[in-house]
């Protein structure tokens, strides 16, 4: 540092100028509850399940790295007399989910029957057990526990 | 090692990607000249649809031969897979061989050190070292030493200081003691932890560690009470 730098403190004033310029800039803050950013189309959020499309292959449960998808099914004769798998249970232990999306990738149906691209991320609940196991009802039909965003159908945003 | 056939650019102009067998090339000058990378030789087309990579014998490699000659009895075998040479060393000659590699062959950088548990094999463990030479065109060699369960492996922390924590980690997770290590304590698990998690017989779901969180609720010695339904079975 030269003598003049020590006397005039140019670096000090330079720094002050830098922050001073920002004083007049518009804040970048997004004030969250009032002004929420819309997530991107590929955003991995809350699960959605289409029970009609699901073929109960349990590939999603197999592929889940932390084994949080629980599927039970049994065979039932449908009106045509054919055996058909009927879902007993489709639970996701949401509190452990890390939203990696591997279940969606593993799903063999087209369009997928389980998908995460729902843009819904406000998953907080007041009761621990509300978030623990999301049963079929919650996965297929969101009730007031989960604030629905614009529901994105599988296939969009690809 | 370092050069998988598919990764080796065709043009020798590309810096630091030289043939592993090439004699010592000086390290690149500090600011890598932009020109060196600019020509950007296109990579060769995909290698012929070879069958799955398989190990080949590498006893003939110059480095292996040199090591075997310099430290007699140290090399038990060598093989090459996906362009990476592995030398199997005799435990008794490990430190000597490492010292030779570092001092004479300029492998100054110990990249990593770990172990593999082969469970039924005798000896049970392999301790694996990677060494790197900046002066030999970024050549890398992997060293392997077989260690029996309960036996001690000689420490290389006197050769490369960085081996200190890596050996502690292996000791912690595999239970392989390192003879002559200056500070052989557990590092990732806590002092007093029982068991070595990366051994194949250690249960994935964990064990009852006996850590007392609520001394008034749980019996002496800690952990869930024997009749607690949350208690996990200790395997």
């Amino acid at each position, binding site marked *: *540092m030269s003598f003049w730098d020590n006397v005039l403190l140019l670096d000090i004033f330079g720094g*002050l100028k830098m922050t001073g310029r920002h004083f007049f*800039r518009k*804040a970048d*803050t997004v004030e969250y509850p009032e002004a929420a950013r819309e997530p991107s189309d590929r955003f991995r959020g809350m699960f959605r399940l289409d029970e009609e499309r699901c073929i109960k292959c349990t590939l999603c449960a197999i592929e889940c790295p932390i084994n949080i998808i629980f599927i039970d099914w049994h065979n039932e004769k449908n009106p045509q007399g054919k055996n058909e798998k009927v879902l007993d249970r489709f639970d996701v232990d949401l509190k452990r989910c890390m939203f990696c999306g591997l279940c969606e990738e593993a799903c063999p149906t087209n369009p997928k029957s389980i998908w995460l691209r729902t843009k819904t991320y406000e998953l907080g609940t007041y009761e621990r057990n509300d978030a623990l196991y999301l049963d079929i009802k919650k996965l297929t039909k969101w009730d007031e526990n989960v604030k629905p965003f614009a529901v994105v159908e599988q296939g969009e945003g690809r | 090692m370092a050069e998988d056939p598919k990764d080796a650019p065709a043009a020798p102009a590309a810096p630091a990607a030289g043939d592993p067998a090439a004699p010592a090339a000086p390290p690149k000058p500090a600011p890598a000249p932009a020109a060196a990378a600019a020509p950007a030789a296109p990579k060769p087309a995909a290698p012929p649809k070879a069958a799955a990579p398989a190990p080949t014998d590498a006893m003939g490699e110059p480095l292996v031969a040199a090591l075997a000659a310099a430290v007699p009895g140290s090399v038990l075998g060598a093989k090459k897979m996906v362009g990476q040479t592995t030398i199997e060393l005799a435990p008794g000659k490990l430190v000597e061989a490492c010292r030779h590699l570092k001092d004479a062959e300029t492998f100054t950088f110990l990249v990593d050190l770990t172990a593999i548990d082969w469970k039924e094999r005798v000896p049970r463990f392999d301790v694996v070292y990677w060494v790197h030479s900046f002066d030999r065109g970024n050549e890398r060699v992997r060293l392997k030493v077989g260690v029996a369960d309960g036996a001690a492996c000689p420490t290389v922390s006197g050769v490369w200081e960085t081996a200190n924590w890596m050996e502690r980690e292996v000791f912690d997770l595999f239970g392989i003691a390192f003879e002559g290590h200056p500070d052989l304590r557990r590092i990732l698990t806590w002092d007093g932890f029982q068991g070595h998690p990366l051994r194949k017989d250690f249960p994935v779901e964990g064990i009852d560690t006996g850590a007392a969180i609520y001394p008034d609720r749980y019996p002496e010695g800690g952990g869930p009470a024997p009749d607690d339904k949350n208690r996990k079975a200790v395997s």
Partner: protein
Amino acid sequence: MDISESVLTWVLIPAVKAVVVVVLVATAAGVLTYIERRTLAFLQVRKGPNRVGPEGILQFVADVVKLLTKEDVVPAKARHVIHFLAPVLVMVPGLAVFAVLPWGPEFTMRIPGLGKLTTAWYATDVNVSLLLLLAITSVGIYGIILGGWASNSKYALLGGLRSAAQLISYEVPMGFAVVSAILMARSLSLVEIVEAQKTHHMWFILPGLVSFFLYFVSGVAETNRIPFDLPEAESELVAGFHTEYSGFRWAIFFLTEYANMITISAVATALFFGGWLRPFPNVAALSFLDLIPGVIWYVLKVSCFLFVYIWFRGTFPRYRFDQLMALGWKTLIPISLVNLVCVALAALGGFRGLRILGAILWVAAIGAFLVVTRMRASKRWPQSAGPAPAGARGAEA
């Protein structure tokens, strides 16, 4: 002077003033915390607290309520009595100095039933008020040291020790800077110093440019603010001397820090920026500025200093302890000694001498600034002692 008047002059008015000062200072310190958070937020392209009350103005009330109702945790092995006394020892001097701060000139008002009354915008004018001020502020150090020691925590102890060394060291250049103002005004009374700036036809910032810098830098250090906030350096000592304080005792430390900021700024205003005087106090053409009362001028000037405090906080990293000491002892004290001699010589020449000194200082400073910045306009930064790694700057097109 009859009895009722002397009661009024010596008991009632001081009592009222004391209460008003304490309440105002406590509130001002609270508001200052809010202002600081907002200002910092603006410097950092964010919004800051804006939820409680309109634009968040009641945030400090919410904070105070929260702190009052919080559990007061005392470490098990703390020295309880001293741990309890330390915040008091910090707060009392912090508030006491406000007695001598001259916020405005004397004025006369008419009180129904009592007749005309002459009083002033300050609690009292002691003829050695500067001395009193320096003496009282020094007492606050004891609270910090004792608080750090009594907490029985190593971090608090380190913070207290740092604080002791720092405050004592920076008292010295601060004292010298104050002395130079005293020399210029030939009085120890703050009120007289302010009035002297009117009789000298200039603010003392003109001849006292260097003194002011010294005073302000030492003041920042005295109030433990960035870049000198070592006693409570968050990233090093967790919270320094008040690590083990919580609830309202912590709030007392906190509020006193802000009260001290106000004190330092107010004294700087009185010493160097003409106190309650308007700019160019003797230029008749600007007399319309007299419509704004002196108190407002004073508050405006103090606010500017407080803004600079916050601006500093938003800009600078923190010194290391030994560097701070080196700065104090090796840089500020020698400069302040030389400065003191210069000012004393100039003061010998009366107010003519002071004017010459001021002219030399300002011309030299502005000239050097212009020349050096012009010279460096081409280079963004001078090539400094630091190494320039390949491609550190301007490597890409």
